[in-house]
């Protein structure tokens, strides 16, 4: 049994896990970097260990310090969340060797899925369809280039070059013309080498017009490996998902069953334990291909929870403590949509923004769930990922879920920091979203010159009246910023907060 969990993460996902532990009657320990002190998640844990260090590498990625924190607080398990150390096999191994329960799959499973080329081979051997392509194992640059060039002729164009250790779009190149191949391959190799210390590249056929469909799986030690249906996460900007839904709008029970079985095979091929996600590309032809497996909890897990009536984090805790999972037969009910709320300027190439959350009033009402890492009065700093929260809605049908999401986004008031709320709201009106025909290029296709908000002169004029009246009436709100101004010497946007003007 698990009695005390250390959450090795921050922000929104740390909050999600800490809440689940508290509901399960499990003691909690949070760890935080010095510049995260006082943020929401640090207040949710029973105990807090402030890590020593001023960079991500010396805090949230410092394996030794985190294991020490677990040992010194008597934690018997570590939950890594997503990102940070969640997919580092050596960390999982050290945790286990320290006699602490690792809430996740075995280090071997993480390794087999973490190396994309190994994962492709494992899946092919397990009979799971992979995207047509070829792996090139050679470490020598000249040899690798020759092998890649000849492989490119067999794979055909357009094609995609990917780094074996890749992620987040790094070391990835789309090639449409054979004449560009060598230059792109060299670029991808350089980028991969710099980002991951591993320049190995493989080639996949580029399946334009495909949907990104992923299957949630759960596996326990009592012989059960199940899937919880799919999520469609095609809508992406800069290779990051922003709009996710379950079930997939074009999914059929037959396709769900065959993709679900392929995902279960994938999990079983690496003796998977816990919660994981098998990602597929669904081509316009109806064929689906293995993309990769994420060996951790996923950002968009709430949509699956809402339509299946599951608490995936609670199941993770149950499975890691050796208990059987509590899920019954798969029963999908209604429709759920999640949008990711970012502190970013969608009208300016999605550039991250910072500032105080002077006003943060989330929407309320039936079928609305907010998984947030922030609250009113917090500061958005440049130190971490700009994802603030996830807004998730559930409704009996997809149309109603979309209507509910529009209403919820209209009601969401965030002042003081530029966010993508308006972009998400307009996204809900984009024809491919309305029709459910989204693909991985929907945002770029719909706004080829970048997104700009639709002007509403009536409200713009009225807002000017409100601003001028606010000034005249002296409706200044005083904000006291918590940041001490010493966060990495960057100009603090909050030092101006208590200024008043006559």
């Amino acid at each position, binding site marked *: 049994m698990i009695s005390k969990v250390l959450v090795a993460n921050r922000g929104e996902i740390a909050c999600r896990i800490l809440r689940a532990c508290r509901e399960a009657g499990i003691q909690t320990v949070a760890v935080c970097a010095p510049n995260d002190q006082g943020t929401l998640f640090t207040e949710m844990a029973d105990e807090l260990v402030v890590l020593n260090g001023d960079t991500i590498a010396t805090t949230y990625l410092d394996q030794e310090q985190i294991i020490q924190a677990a040992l010194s607080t008597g934690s018997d398990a570590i939950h890594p969340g997503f990102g940070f150390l969640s997919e580092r096999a050596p960390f999982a191994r050290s945790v286990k060797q320290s006699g602490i329960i690792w809430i996740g799959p075995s280090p071997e499973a993480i390794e087999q899925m973490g190396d994309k080329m190994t994962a492709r081979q494992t899946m092919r051997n397990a009979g799971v369809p992979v995207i047509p392509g070829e792996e090139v194992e050679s470490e020598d640059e000249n040899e690798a280039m020759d092998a890649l060039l000849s492989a490119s002729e067999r794979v055909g164009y357009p094609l995609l070059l990917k780094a074996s250790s890749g992620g987040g779009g790094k070391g990835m190149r789309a090639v449409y013309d054979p004449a560009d191949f060598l230059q792109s391959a060299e670029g991808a190799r350089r980028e991969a080498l710099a980002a991951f210390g591993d320049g190995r590249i493989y080639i996949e056929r580029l399946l334009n017009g495909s949907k990104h469909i992923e299957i949630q799986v759960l596996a326990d030690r009592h012989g059960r490996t199940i899937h919880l249906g799919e999520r469609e996460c095609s809508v992406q900007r800069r290779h990051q998902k922003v709009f996710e839904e379950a079930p997939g709008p074009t999914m059929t029970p037959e396709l769900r069953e065959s993709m679900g079985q392929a995902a279960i095979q994938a999990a079983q091929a690496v003796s998977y334990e816990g919660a994981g996600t098998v990602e597929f590309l669904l081509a316009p032809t109806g064929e689906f291909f293995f993309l990769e497996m994420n060996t951790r909890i996923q950002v968009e897990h709430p949509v699956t929870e809402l339509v299946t009536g599951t608490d995936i984090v609670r199941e993770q805790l149950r499975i890691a403590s050796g208990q059987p999972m509590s899920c019954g037969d798969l029963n999908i009910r209604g429709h759920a949509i999640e949008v990711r709320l970012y502190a970013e300027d969608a009208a300016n190439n999605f550039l991250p923004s910072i*500032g*105080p959350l*002077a*006003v943060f*009033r989330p929407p309320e009402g039936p079928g609305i769930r907010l998984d947030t890492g922030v609250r009113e009065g917090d500061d958005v700093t440049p130190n971490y990922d700009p994802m603030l929260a996830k807004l998730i809605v559930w409704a009996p049908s997809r149309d109603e879920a979309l209507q509910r999401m529009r209403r919820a*986004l*209209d*009601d969401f*008031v*965030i*002042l*003081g920091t*530029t*966010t993508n*709320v*308006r972009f998400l*709201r307009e996204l809900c009106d984009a024809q491919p979203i309305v029709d459910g025909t989204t693909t991985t290029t929907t945002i770029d296709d719909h706004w080829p010159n970048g997104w700009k*908000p639709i002007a*509403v002169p*009536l*409200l*713009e*004029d*009225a*807002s*000017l*009246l*409100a*601003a*001028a*009246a*606010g*000034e*005249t*009436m002296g*409706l*200044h*709100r005083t*904000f006291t910023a918590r940041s001490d101004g010493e966060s990495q010497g960057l100009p603090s*946007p909050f030092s*101006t*907060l208590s*200024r*008043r*003007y*006559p």
Partner: protein
Amino acid sequence: MQHQFSSPDGPIEVSLTRTDSGYALAGHSLEQTGDGRLKVHLSNGRVAYAHLAKVGDVWWVHLRGQTYRWERIEPGSSSSQHEGGLVAPMPGKVLEVLVKTGEEVQSGTPLMVLEAMKMEHRIVAAKDGVVTAVHFEAGDQVTQGAVLLELDE
């Protein structure tokens, strides 16, 4: 009740009209609610509630799902009392001088920072021009109406 805000198309001059219960502009009118929001009667006859916050010089306004940012241009940045000169809007101390004589500045460029009544006040250029004189340096006390700098178009 005049205010100036900056916009991508240049400064916007706003002249509010006082009404029985609040203010009006361009067919819209508003009144205060008890919870810090403003009840806006839009020119199309409908009602909307505005959420407001001021951060630095910027007014953030949320209205019917839209969020607007209006950066206020300080009243001291343009003066009818002294042609081309920028005057102190209140008595205080010069904290910082951000420009030198001969420097070319654009509309909106911060020129000087004043402290008065424990508040900071930024003096910004209301138009493009060249700084022809700087009359104070950091640490100097200034009286209300004192000409701080001079600007030629």
